[in-house]
């Protein structure tokens, strides 16, 4: 039976389903209890599971993260919410020096099955500190698994998978997708979790590959649709799992098309986009007809609401980059 859900509701359902399935799952953070989170992702969980299973903490992100480490050490599966991307930075030491390293440090004796949910990226007209694309900080940190869903079904399955994962997962939720809706078959999805380390071909094409993730997937799909009208067939890869990265799927596509553009909202310098470009040229050098190009945010602090549209990867900017891929006919 198919239902229509928003991205936000899919996440909420995933949390509820995992809490139902596993009594060791606990959810906490700022305003996640009575309020149900500023984006309502935890709506109703306190009511349904009690305030021992879903609760508010004092306002301190390092505290939230450090407490999660201890709870995971002692048999629970914490799912914590960082209210916004830039408000996860106070927890950076806990994330980098403990969350990412504790299992390695103890030769796997201590596992940390915890999930750090971060509403991230822009496109919602948010004021400063509410729109950072912070994935590169986490992706660069060995020991973290870093994923970002771009569709409603993936929001559901990937969050369930993240909670069941034996290692700490940074779960990046593109804010601008929260209100997007899709039809989905929840029952079918319940058993289909298998996305970590697996990119998907979001649209097939033959002329060039757009490689992207999270908030930029829909933009890339729109660009591909527009390109199709002009007779150019673009393949779109939704990376989904940034770490581990699915080299096989990405490289297969680029070997097929011979051209690639990497798209991400974050500033481009020393970013996940840089990594994808580097990997592609390392692995597909002789298949490439043109350099791998990037369409990313500029190397600037996230702009104020009225300026953000100049900054974000847009359909036009993607099509421009595709045009630059040294087509013989040009």
């Amino acid at each position, binding site marked *: 039976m198919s239902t229509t859900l928003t991205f936000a509701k899919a996440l909420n359902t995933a949390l509820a389903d995992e809490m139902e399935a596993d009594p060791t799952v606990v959810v906490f953070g*700022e305003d996640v209890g009575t309020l149900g989170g500023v984006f309502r992702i935890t709506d109703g969980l306190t009511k349904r599971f009690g305030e021992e299973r879903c609760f508010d903490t004092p306002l301190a992100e390092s505290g939230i993260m450090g407490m999660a480490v201890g709870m995971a050490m002692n048999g629970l599966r914490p799912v914590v919410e960082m209210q916004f991307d830039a408000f996860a930075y106070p927890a950076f030491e806990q994330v980098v020096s403990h969350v990412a390293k504790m299992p390695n440090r103890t030769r796997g004796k201590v596992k940390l099955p915890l999930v750090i949910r971060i509403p991230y990226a822009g496109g919602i007209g948010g004021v400063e500190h509410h729109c950072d694309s912070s994935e590169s900080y986490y992706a660069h940190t060995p020991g973290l698994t870093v994923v970002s869903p771009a569709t409603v079904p993936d929001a559901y399955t990937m969050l369930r998978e993240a909670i069941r994962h034996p290692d700490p997962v940074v779960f990046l939720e593109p804010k601008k997708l929260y209100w997007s809706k899709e039809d989905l078959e929840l029952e079918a999805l319940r058993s289909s979790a298998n996305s970590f380390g697996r990119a998907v071909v979001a649209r097939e094409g033959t002329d060039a590959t757009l490689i992207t993730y999270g908030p930029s997937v829909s933009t890339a799909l729109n660009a591909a649709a527009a390109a199709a009208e002009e007779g150019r067939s673009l393949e779109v890869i939704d990376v989904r799992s940034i770490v581990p990265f699915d080299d096989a799927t990405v490289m297969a596509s680029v070997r097929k098309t011979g051209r690639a553009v990497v798209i991400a909202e974050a500033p481009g310098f020393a970013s996940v986009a840089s990594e994808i470009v580097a990997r592609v040229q390392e692995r597909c050098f002789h298949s490439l007809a043109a350099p791998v190009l990037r369409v990313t945010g500029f190397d600037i602090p996230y702009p104020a609401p009225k300026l953000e549209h100049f900054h974000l990867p847009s359909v036009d900017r993607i099509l421009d980059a595709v045009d630059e891929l040294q087509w013989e006919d040009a």
Partner: protein
Amino acid sequence: MTISTGSPWRGSMQEPAGRADLDAQRAAESYMLPSVEPVQLIDPDGRHVHNDKYPLPDGDSLLGAYRELVVGRRVNDQANALVRQGRMAVYPSSHGQEACQVAAALCIEAADWLFPTYRDTVAVLARGVDPIQALTLLRGDWHSGYDPYEHNVSIQATPLATQLLHAVGVAHAAKLKGENTVVVAMCGDGATSEGDFHEALNFAAVFHVPVVFFVQNNQYAISVPLSHQSVAPSLAHKAIGYGMPGERVDGNDLAALLAVLGKAVDRARDGGGPALVEAHTYRMQSHTNADDATRYRSDDEVAQWVPKDPVMRMRTYLTELKLLDESTEKDIAAEAERVAAALREGLNAESEVDPEDLFRHVYSEKTSQLREQAAKLREELSREQL
């Protein structure tokens, strides 16, 4: 510039006290611990309450402050209206907390510094900052619209408690330069849970710098009530853990706020070091217009705070003492209306943004990377215009 001499540390903490120091320690404790009840000088009914430690500010000061209070309330109401009309993206109102706002601005001199948060727009305006410039942030034109050096008002900080450390730095630099600057650093009850709150208070105490930490305890951090934030006897009880005095004050009593903050500022200016002041107040509206406070608190609870309103009691007090008459009241109302009109006019005017600004201030001089990126955007935009 000369850096003044003298050790940067106060260094008063020493070996555990000997028996002879017992009295000294108990005296220090009672000096640093807050009073049991928040200091109140004018009660909700507008009557003066005597307090041995804090005399009532004089009538002129109170009347001047009242003027700002009325303007502040009007600013809050007008800003809310402008959000409803879509002229501003969001506004975290200080409705109900205006006495704190006004007192924070008035308790210091022009050369002193104020470190406000996103909620402290009324305090920022009371310092003299241009209202339209102040609202640039919430309108979405730029991150901060005013020059912090014009009125010595720092940016309205969003990442909680981080600004308290900047305040300590400004005070520390002033001290090293031999300047007699006092800094008022504001934050909310929720922000006291952040590590930066702790580090700021400790640095201020250890370096013995003139910062007055002013916590507006409005009982909520978005939806989270104070009881989930702290189980200390009060937030002001944190002061002793840093070796500074803590005080509690009725945050809806402008007279008490001026007295308590004034004393802390004087003490800081005289080299007495930092202090922590906790104001008990209430956020009468939702966290911002994007929030819905009915999800987490009852109308009943809110209703209990209505009679404690800061504006009403000052009006009663001043009227009864004949410090305020109808014509002055009208005069003040007219001024508030002028400010509100200016707000409306300023925000109704379309603002222009310049895409080149994206690259202009990231560094003092554009890097070669940014020059390239700016050129790219310029080129895109010029194509669009064709």
